């Protein structure tokens, strides 16, 4: 009989690439995608990394200073900031209403509910959701004209898609007990929703809406670049005319707004989860 080895033989490390290794395929695919991307894009690194570009970048950044702080211009920036805030708030509100209205046909309220509209409504919600705010703004500008109205509607369109889906899932996941209790008493669908389902899911709907509002403030700040009002419109206008001092002020206001919203939402979340 052959004596057993005193210690088990060393196993060789796995081969670097084997056809059965999923991670290897994944890594290979990623590498190929990256190489193909860099190869197919005509990136002008020479132009970007040249001394000439560095100098023009430096000049460009230098022109930002001093930022324009004349009271008259600051007032316009303040109006733009308010407009951005109003667009985001009102757009989110419209989206919450629209999302709730679409979430009802998009969800199965109880076991016996046939929910025939569920699939088409979900398709509609997906379409609304997968077109970004900026593209909606570009489309709506044609119908609504330049200004914050188009931006508000654009935010509302995209956010309706997002919130509608989240709301529908919240409604479907609500505990069925209270609704069933009302239903066996012969209460109609609308009142079952209003008095049993809605009170249960309302906190969740509120928190989704607030979270989207936070996102929308950011989106509203840049929406104006295509002409849909708010700070972005001021930014695109003054950058187009090479008013660099004014651009710097607007960028500062934008950063301040975003930082403020971040800090507020961070604080609020910490306060609520404490």
């Amino acid at each position, binding site marked *: 009989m052959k004596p057993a080895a005193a210690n088990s033989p060393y196993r060789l490390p796995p081969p670097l690439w084997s056809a059965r290794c999923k991670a290897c395929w994944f890594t290979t695919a990623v590498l190929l995608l990256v190489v193909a991307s860099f190869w197919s*894009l005509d990136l*002008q*690194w020479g132009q970007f990394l040249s001394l000439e570009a560095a100098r023009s970048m430096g000049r*460009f950044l230098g022109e930002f200073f001093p930022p324009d702080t004349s009271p008259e211009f600051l007032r316009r920036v303040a109006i733009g900031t308010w407009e951005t805030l109003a667009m985001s708030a009102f757009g989110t509100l419209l989206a919450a209403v629209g999302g709730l209205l679409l979430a009802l046909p998009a969800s199965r309220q109880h076991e016996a509910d046939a929910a025939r509209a569920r699939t088409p409504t979900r398709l509609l919600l997906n379409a609304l959701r997968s077109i970004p705010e900026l*593209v909606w703004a570009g*489309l709506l500008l044609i119908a609504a004209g330049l200004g914050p109205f188009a931006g508000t509607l654009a935010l509302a369109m995209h956010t309706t898609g997002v919130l509608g889906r989240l709301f529908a899932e919240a409604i479907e996941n609500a505990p069925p007990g209270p609704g069933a209790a009302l239903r066996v008493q012969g209460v109609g669908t609308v009142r079952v929703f209003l008095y049993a389902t809605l009170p249960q899911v309302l906190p969740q709907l509120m928190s989704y809406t607030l979270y989207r509002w936070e996102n929308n403030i950011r989106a509203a700040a840049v929406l104006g670049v295509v002409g849909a009002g708010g700070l972005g419109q001021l930014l695109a206008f003054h950058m187009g005319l090479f008013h660099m001092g004014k651009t710097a002020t607007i960028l500062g206001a*934008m950063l301040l707004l*975003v930082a403020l919203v971040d800090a507020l939402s961070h604080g609020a979340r910490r306060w609520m989860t404490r």
Partner: protein
Amino acid sequence: MAVALPPPARDPAWIGRVFWIGAGLVLLWPLMVATEFRPWIFLARDNLKVTGQFLGSFLPPAHAPDFLAMVARESWRTVAIATAGMTLALVLAVPLTLLSTRVLSVSALSGRMARGPFWLRQALRWLLIVLRSVPELVWALVFVRVVGLGPTAGVLAIALTYGGMLGKVYGEILESGETHATAALLRNGSSRLQAFAYGLLPQNAAELTSYTVYRWECAIRSSVVLGFVGAGGLGQQLDNSMKMFNGGEVLTMLAVFVALVALADRVSAGLRKALG
């Protein structure tokens, strides 16, 4: 004996509800003024005509072979801009994460972190915050000025914004996990890079990869949007067609875009599920 009360015929809380609805409407008024909320302008005669013509031109969607070839090429460019941008973002984010994460601090093993490393880490954190709080669209506007129209501006914009986002979230992932293995390695004299490669990375690799894949999906979405300020790809063509009121082309490109996003969504969800 308890007497069964008749069910209330009216909502018992109606006064409160009516009051809060009224208060909400009063608060809504300034918002409606500021956003110039005038839905009836949709119904104005000439507006209705323009919109009708535009919507009418949506059908049939454009399907000329050379147009479809152009759309396919631009879709690939959109994906390529997102991928190249993500690669550069990783190049930016990984060193910044390694430098700024608290877990790899040697001096923090015994009490408080020394002052120098603490401020270095804090400064890098602020840099990451600045990078990600400038929206990528604004970065793109700036770079279009410097390098001209084309994909370079889009790639750079995605690289900077996403570099900041990835750096911050990577740091959070590394710090939120179990750090005993890393600390043990560092205590026994391994270098920081060794401690990262053998302690921190194996524990968090799945989560880090999954977040990166998710961000790649987001980058595809934003690379379309960047096209609107002239950074190439599907967005730029979409913007051109919209300005020319060419509804058929707009419809085709919107459909391609929705399909592209859905595909990226599917791929990313599948990969993240496989990673567990």
